[in-house]
């Protein structure tokens, strides 16, 4: 397989795994205000992601680093064209990380209430910003030899906002299902009920997204020219249906697993639809950034491939071990009796 294609696939996998893993953290953040009533319940929610959120965020940094190393032109233009959106994203990521760490460090109701708000707001902001950014990438952005012809506000077009809404709802449901397998008692019941309520809106927005993609973008063209690829969006739809099926059976672990698969395949649907582009130009395909015109040299790609094939499996192995160590549900006792808990 050619090296650019390997790195295109890896690029897609890094983003997909990032969205699958940080998606439930972001989802937990968005719904935390709605389902946690007391301080202890809020602490339980933060502690469900406590041991893993930081490691999950590294997938984003790795996706960014891989873009830099494998497709430097895309990295350079994507980050400078989307300057303001990325700045907001950065601030949201920083506040989110700090709020988990700092919330419990001062025993004062106002202090905690402020961080609780920050957790919810940054959750919404992160889901929306990622959705809007990727919506615009799927659709293509107005760029040519002279550079970028849009602004921050032109990113907030209907298709961008629709993708934003898809990410919001999908992450919220994903986060709710995560809490279904990580909490107990009332908290768990509320998460289950919320996940159930979110499923229909997710389905509706997902269908609208697909229809709108067909009408307004070239995102689905690859699927019609290479029907074998249809497996990917079908898997996305199938996983989403499986979520409903498992929820109805109250098989929450399976429902969460299906939700993970949904996030993965939704991302893959977008990424495979882009091929061979990384960022299409909405003005003229000549100016699109493709995996060929923006890639690093074969030598660099070869070295990066060796590094990735050695270290990514090691990372996955110890991450699986960590998820196993912390697989238990977080209970009231856990947060009240341990000084280390957030």
């Amino acid at each position, binding site marked *: 397989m050619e090296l650019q294609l390997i790195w295109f696939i890896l690029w897609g996998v890094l983003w997909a795994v990032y969205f699958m893993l940080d998606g439930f953290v972001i989802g937990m953040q968005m719904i935390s205000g709605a389902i946690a009533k007391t301080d202890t319940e809020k602490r339980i929610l933060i502690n469900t992601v406590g041991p893993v959120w930081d490691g999950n965020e590294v997938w984003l940094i790795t996706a960014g680093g891989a873009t830099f190393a494998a497709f430097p032109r895309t990295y*350079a233009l994507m980050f400078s064209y989307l300057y303001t959106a990325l700045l907001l994203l950065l601030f949201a*990521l920083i506040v989110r990380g*700090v709020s988990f*760490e700092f919330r419990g460090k001062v025993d004062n109701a106002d202090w905690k209430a402020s961080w609780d708000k920050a957790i919810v707001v940054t959750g919404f902001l992160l889901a929306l910003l990622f959705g809007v950014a990727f919506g615009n990438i799927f659709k293509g952005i107005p760029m040519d030899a002279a550079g970028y012809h849009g602004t921050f506000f032109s990113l907030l077009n209907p298709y961008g906002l629709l993708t934003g809404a898809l990410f919001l709802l999908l992450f919220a449901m994903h986060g709710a299902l995560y809490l279904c397998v990580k909490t107990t008692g009332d908290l768990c019941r509320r998460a289950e009920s919320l996940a159930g309520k979110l499923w229909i809106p997710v389905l509706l927005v997902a269908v609208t997204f697909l229809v709108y993609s067909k009408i307004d973008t070239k995102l689905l063209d690859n699927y019609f020219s290479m029907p074998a690829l249809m497996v990917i969006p079908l898997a996305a739809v199938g996983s989403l249906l499986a979520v409903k099926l498992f929820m109805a059976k109250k098989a929450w672990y399976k429902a969460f697993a299906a939700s993970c698969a949904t996030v993965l395949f939704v991302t893959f649907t977008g990424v495979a639809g882009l091929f061979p582009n990384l960022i299409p130009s909405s003005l003229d395909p000549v100016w699109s950034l493709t995996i060929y015109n923006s890639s690093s040299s074969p030598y660099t790609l070869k070295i990066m491939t060796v590094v990735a094939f050695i270290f990514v499996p090691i990372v996955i192995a*110890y991450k699986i071990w960590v998820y196993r160590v*912390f697989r238990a549900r977080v209970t009231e006792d856990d947060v009240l009796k341990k000084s280390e808990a957030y």
Partner: protein
Amino acid sequence: MDVLTLSRWQFAITCMFHFIFVPLTLGLSILTAYFETRWVQTNDETWLRMAKFWGKLFLINFSLGVVTGITMEFQFGMNWAEYSRYVGDIFGAPLAIEATVAFFLESVFIGVWIFGWDRISKKAHALSIWLVALGTNLSALWILLANGWMQHPVGYHLVTDAMGQIRAEMIDFGALLTNANGWYKFFHTVTSGYVVAAFFVMGISAWHLLRKSNPDFFKRSFRTAAIFGLASTIAVVATGDFSAIDVAKHQPAKLAAMESVWDTQKGVDFFLLLVPDSDAERNSIEAIGLPKMVSLLAFHNPDGEVKGLKDFPRDLRPPVAPTFWSFRVMVALGFYMMLMAAIGVWLSKKPDFADYGLFLKIMLFSIPVPYLAGQLGWVVAEVGRQPWIVYGVLKTADGVSRSISTGQVVGSLLGFTLFYGSLGVLDVYLLTKFAKKGPDGDIGGFIKMEGRRG
């Protein structure tokens, strides 16, 4: 101000802010790991309380280091798109490797360490903080190999890319990995981080010893940190010497600015008292000379020739005053710290150590000293290589993004300054709060729990 100037300020501010947290992380992870290891070996509870107390301060600092680090990765593309496009083929690789090899390690195992006290064995728990320390130090290695490449580019050639623009492509990964500049910087930077941690632990311990709170606990903390600090200050000076030799060899203009040498000459004297005057291209004061010392230090040869600033075109000279003063003050602080750490090692052996009030007070107020020295060191390294972003290959002015507006960067610079300013206040507030609180007394429940698995 234009996009270039604003972007340079923003990079400097965000980088220096990030580097408030990095050095303490580098050193305190090792000290915390050492304390916990001693507990595993001896079952002595004081070591455990030390791991927990210093570990808590470590975590507050660590979280800010992590979140402010993401800014650095984003900023290359956001503000320095031309640079990123030009060098991505060779500069992107170490960054991606850093994320894969180091960030995952530290970020995953920090979670294990915080939450794993009663879930894994004592040994596995101690191992997890060692893996965090390994991750942070490996991360420093990769980012400094990347920085070393900017300082002394190796293993590349310039070619026309698929879109018809010139860029640097990697041709020798081994050369990147073995770039002496990067390795000297790595050892110099991590050991200076160990000094930050040593002075942090000594300073806070001094505060408690002055109040006679938990004397055994803080005497032991102080003594460990003093020994660690003395060894590290010696290593910083030694690696600084190697770095200087590398600068002399590859970055002659930086060397000339560091020592404020205007005319090319052999056997350059070192003046203890020197004030550069850039406009007049001379030094307005030169007094108390040590014969041939600059040449001796830079080339290990008393007759080594230093190329003077006047022999570089004006537009290829780094700003002399900030480079010179930063270097001078950094070196002076380095020797101050070596002396204080040595006194610390000597005094902390004494049974009446807590009665040395003046020394303890000095150590408390010396906490910021290694931080300052580290920041100044980066000013020498980065201001001293101007006007180049990649030494001799690409100018800083040619690396800035073309598609961003002054308004955008004014907005982001203001945003970062205010936002980081408040984070800094919060960090100092929380560190002070927990530092003053002292170690937790009651860890009995934990010991019992651990006994089951131990």
